[in-house]
């Protein structure tokens, strides 16, 4: 406690000592780069409304840059717009525009490199290649920003918020649109990603690899080209996120590839081609998720094991589940399946016969994809009904022995 108080005092004195430099088009200081150059460490630069050119302005000392009514910081499509190379930099309320759009370099609206305790608040980034590019940084806060990818010809776009080898980053309340991947992580740990909206990106809403111990809470990933794909990572926690409207040729709500020992709880998967697809993912816990109106609810490859699925709701999905082989040692229990046709004689609200979520027809499609044209035909209906009465065709390992009779209220 005493330590924190000391820290607070130090900060306060620092603040008192700092100067405020005002930048406006008609002021003595009317150039963004010069303002940064002339500032002393821990100064505050107040940017008045107006348009300021900024061809890769480098911030190499701790500064606070505050925009009033979103002044435009214009990169004029020449280079990056702002690069932060120092710790304790705060960028607040800026309207950052027009990075170079070539793909020779990963041009970013804001680049943060080897910086600690930097903050980006309430900034707007538009017509940018990458939005906010953070590498080799820690304890960065990226909050309440909006980044919209450049709308130029071709599909060559950068990522919205890009993390490379970072630690303890907070990404909160941002809106990310029109980029390649909305949020991209590689080799980044202990991050919290919460309340973001990542939508209409041409590839993934969220994409990470080799990024353990991150937590994702209450984010929405909507209508991204191929949904959300995460790979080669352990100890992920995903709570109360929404994955919706990701449809297309190979779109997923959530693709898990070699993700292990992770927790996926309270999420909603709605209107996705495939809500969740899992490859080589083991020791996963799926609880209290809602799978609503997806083409497939779960697609689990046979190389997944020791996964548990409990108390999830499956409603309105064309296929509740599919697999490409025999599943080993996965547990399905107490889920609600709207296609369950069993009975509950002892009235314990749990069906007396197991539910098998994989239908014969979904197995056929797995082998012969063109057969999807027969979906919902009388023949397929007959096949699936026949299969229910001829046990043995379908794997017994993929079943919920205790399906609940009524939808689980959240």
């Amino acid at each position: 406690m005493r330590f924190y108080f000391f820290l607070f005092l130090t900060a306060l004195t620092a603040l008192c000592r700092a100067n405020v430099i005002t930048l406006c088009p008609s002021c003595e200081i009317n150039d963004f780069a010069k303002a940064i150059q002339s500032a002393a460490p821990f100064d505050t630069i107040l940017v008045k409304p107006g348009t300021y050119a900024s061809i890769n302005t480098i911030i190499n000392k701790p500064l606070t840059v505050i925009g009033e009514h979103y002044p435009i910081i214009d990169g004029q499509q020449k280079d990056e717009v702002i690069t932060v190379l120092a710790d304790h930099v705060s960028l607040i309320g800026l309207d950052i525009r027009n990075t170079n759009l070539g793909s020779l370099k990963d041009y970013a609206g804001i680049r943060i490199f080897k910086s600690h305790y930097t903050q980006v608040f309430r900034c707007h980034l538009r017509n940018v290649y990458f939005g906010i590019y953070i590498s080799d940084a820690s304890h960065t806060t990226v909050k309440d920003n909006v980044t919209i990818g450049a709308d130029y010809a071709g599909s060559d776009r950068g990522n919205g918020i890009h993390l490379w080898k970072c630690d303890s980053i907070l990404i909160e309340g941002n809106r990310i649109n029109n980029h390649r991947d909305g949020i991209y992580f590689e080799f980044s740990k202990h991050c919290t990603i919460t309340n973001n909206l990542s939508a209409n990106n041409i590839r993934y809403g969220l994409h990470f690899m080799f990024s353990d111990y991150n937590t994702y809470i209450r984010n929405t990933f909507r209508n991204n080209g191929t949904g959300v794909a995460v790979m080669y990572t352990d100890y992920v926690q995903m709570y109360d996120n929404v994955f919706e409207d990701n449809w297309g040729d190979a779109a997923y709500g959530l693709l898990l590839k070699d993700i292990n020992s992770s927790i996926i709880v309270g999420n909603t998967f709605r209107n996705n081609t495939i809500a969740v697809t899992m490859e080589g993912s083991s020791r996963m816990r799926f609880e209290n998720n809602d799978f609503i109106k997806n083409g497939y609810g779960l697609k689990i490859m046979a190389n997944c094991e020791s996964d548990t699925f409990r108390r999830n709701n499956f409603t309105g999905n064309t296929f509740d589940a599919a697999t490409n082989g025999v599943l080993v040692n996965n547990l399905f229990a107490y889920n609600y399946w709207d296609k369950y046709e069993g009975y509950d004689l002892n009235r314990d609200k749990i069906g007396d016969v197991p539910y098998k979520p994989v239908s014969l027809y979904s197995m056929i499609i797995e082998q012969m994809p063109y057969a999807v044209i027969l979906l919902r035909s009388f023949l397929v209906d007959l096949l699936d009904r026949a299969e229910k009465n001829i046990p043995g065709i379908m794997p017994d390992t993929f079943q919920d022995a205790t399906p609940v009779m009524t939808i689980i209220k959240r």
Partner: protein
Amino acid sequence: MLKIAKYVVYDILRSKVLIAYTLFLLLISFSLFGLESDPSKSLVSLMSVIMIIVPLVSIIFSTTYFYNAYEFIELLVAQPISRNSILLGEYFGVAVSLVVGLLVGVGIPIAYYAPTATGFVLLLSGIALTLSFASLAFFASVVTRDKAKGIGVALMMWFYFSVIYDALVLAVLFAFNDYPLDKAVIGMASLNPIDLGRIMILLKIDISALMGFTGAVYKQFFGKSFGMIYTIGVMLLWILLPLLASVRIFRKKNL
């Protein structure tokens, strides 16, 4: 022609069969919508029922009606009325009655519970199937003279289009699984009005599942305006061709 159709409609509306059909559809529709809180899900179940019941009732009812009206047709043939008018009049009478039954039995529940594009397409497919199976029924009726045989042919047609055809498609897919079959499958689907009707609805309901995998190919084809026009065009052929064939045969038929 329209006068004859008018009398046929009067005649059918007074028979109990059409009323029973309408009530049956009403019962199914309302119970499917009533038991399920999500109307789009009920539409899926309703589709399954409609794809079986509507072609079956349409073809059997039309065939039976044609044979029961045989003497009346004889009477008309001796009047100064062209044979085309007689057959088309009979057809439109039967078709309009069946469509009215469908509109009341399925259209009203859809308008009440699910007045969506999907509901509309479902109703449209139902109407198209009614018209095309009535058309097939007339074809079966003019090529056979015997009532029992005619109904047998009609039943076979229904069974063929509902089950056998799709089984053949599945067999073809199985045999040529390693080849690119998208065009072939679209072609095969065109040769069955029930498949076409189903695909029209699927593109509205199961769009996401269809889009995964090769579904994208179908979606690309059927989902575009060309595909829609193609589907409607082929559906019209399925209505018109059997009807025109029966008109041609009926023109030379001895009564």
